[in-house]
């Protein structure tokens, strides 16, 4: 919202400013009366004005007459998007501040941005790569990049959902103190996760090169993939934010849902290989393989990893990626906007 509030020039207490409220001197213009003190001083006697015609109006009629609007009403969708755009600097600054504040008490500080995902990947490597043998025939030099990519991409979606659930419920103070399009919060949180992922991508690049997956012509593909995933995550965060504002219990439930989703998406094992091992109907395999987390992960691996298991990818995967982003992104935004005026009730 632009707040360049241009009031009329204020009159600085000159005597002409103080109204001598004779019936003849009633100011007509709204602007002129803007700054006129309702009080008189130095013993000036105020003359009662004739009863105002406004007295007979009901509050609603009075409001309509002077162009007053209902406070806190939901703006139209177009207007909402415009307001949101006007707050883009706040959204960005808020996400950066959150990211920065996250590790500011730790001794290593921002190093944890990179260390946390790396430690995660290490744990998964020992469990799935070494102990459970879920690598589906991949050698270390292909499996490790496969695993790390999966973990990072998955973390992006997972954290967006988790912070989405708490976006409104956990920031009620902010919602109740200041005016801004509430969608700023979930969007800001998934933007925070995107920035976190960009740090992780640096680690990923180092690992890839360490295992001799050198930058290829496919690497730039990560930009559209990340953009699509970001839109999808934001839509999902918006949906979760509205649900979470009504039912804070979701914050307790979501870790289980997300863990199920993670195991069903093949974050640390090749999904198709695992599904084929079991006796699972073909259609179910397709459904599982079409879930958004798998789709974005597969695309990212295709773009980055240069191994026998990542040589080509079907066009339908790209279609799915775009489809999920559009449907969940727009759907989530509209879904969130529908309850705009109700956030803050707690």
């Amino acid at each position, binding site marked *: 919202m632009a707040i360049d509030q241009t009031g009329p020039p204020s009159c600085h207490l000159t005597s002409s400013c103080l109204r001598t409220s004779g019936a003849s001197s009633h100011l007509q213009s709204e602007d002129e009366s803007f700054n006129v003190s309702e009080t008189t001083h130095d013993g000036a006697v*105020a003359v009662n004005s004739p009863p105002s015609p406004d007295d007979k109006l009901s509050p609603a009629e009075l409001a309509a007459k002077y162009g007053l609007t209902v406070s806190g009403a939901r703006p139209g969708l177009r207007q909402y998007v415009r307001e949101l755009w006007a707050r883009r600097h*706040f959204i960005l600054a808020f996400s950066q501040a959150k990211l920065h504040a996250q590790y500011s008490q730790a001794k290593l500080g921002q190093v944890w941005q990179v260390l946390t995902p790396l430690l995660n990947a290490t744990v998964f490597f020992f469990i799935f790569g070494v102990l459970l043998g879920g690598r589906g025939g991949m050698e270390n030099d292909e499996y490790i990049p496969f695993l790390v990519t999966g973990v990072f991409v998955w973390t992006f979606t997972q954290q967006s959902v988790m912070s989405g659930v708490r976006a409104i419920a956990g920031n009620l103070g902010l919602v109740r103190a*200041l005016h801004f399009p509430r969608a700023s919060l979930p969007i800001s949180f998934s933007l925070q996760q995107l920035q976190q992922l960009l740090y992780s991508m640096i680690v990923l690049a180092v690992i890839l090169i360490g295992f001799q997956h050198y930058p290829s012509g496919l690497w730039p593909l990560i930009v559209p993939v990340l953009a699509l995933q970001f839109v999808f995550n934001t839509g999902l965060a918006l949906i979760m934010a509205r649900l979470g504002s009504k039912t804070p219990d979701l914050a307790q439930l979501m870790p289980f849902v997300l863990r199920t989703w993670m195991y069903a998406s093949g974050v640390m094992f090749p999904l198709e290989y695992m599904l084929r091992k079991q006796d699972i109907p073909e259609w179910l395999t397709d459904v599982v393989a079409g879930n958004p987390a798998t789709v974005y992960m597969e695309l990212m691996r295709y773009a980055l990893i240069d191994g026998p298991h990542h040589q080509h990818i079907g066009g339908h995967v790209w279609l799915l990626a775009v489809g999920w982003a559009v449907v969940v992104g727009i759907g989530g935004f509209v879904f969130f906007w529908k309850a705009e005026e109700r956030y803050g009730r707690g």
Partner: protein
Amino acid sequence: MAVAEKSTQAETSGAALPPAATGPRVPTVIAEDLHIVYRVNGGARGKGSATAALNRMIRRSADKGVREVHAVKGVSFTAYRGEAIGLIGSNGSGKSTLLKAIAGLIPAERGKVYTNGQPSLLGVNAALMNDLTGERNVILGGLAMGMTREQIRERYEGIVAFSGINEKGDFITLPMRTYSSGMSARLRFSIAAAKDHDVLMIDEALATGDKKFQKRSEGRIRELRKEAGSVFLVSHNNKSIRDTCDRVLWLEHGVLRMDGMTDEVLKAYEKFTGK
């Protein structure tokens, strides 16, 4: 405005006249039979244990663990352009809730609030983060209030100087968690007061800081009042209400108990509180 500038006079002569005594009045805020209800999860009566919660769920008792707090009960009033309105009442009488409802921050259960433009609450605390430096908080707080980056850059020096944070060394570049409570309160007020407001609402902002800072912030509020259409001020300090307001609303248990000129209402209120 005049009342504030000549506060001593206003105090002694009781010069504030009821707004009804003057010319064509343009309403800026209209509240019509406003009810605000908070719903509190987990505030249910009885034991807060898991078995008690389960028991409630199984027996499907009416409260379901949600308690309702009826904070504002049917308040109606009209505020006019140029008025400074004080809100008084004991703790928990619904003053702050009423302000937030006027600002459109808490949805009304019943009734409506009509406003001219966007009323803003002088409260930026919630947007600030203790782990960030004062410097970044100034920027973040400004953006949260809807200022543009240029406006913040323009006013940055002014905000820091007003807060007096740097008077005892370069504190603005330290995280806010290292500030004393007085220092962070001063910075918060300075950030909040940096913006121009249409309908301005101030919630106990004058209670912060030392004497010197209180003087300075009262002056700033007078300036803000000059620029704003209407000002609402919540305070437990009757003197600052008397100095700045010409009309007072007295809330008690969420009900509007009295609405009138400052002296009249304050007299009744002081009698009520036994002062």
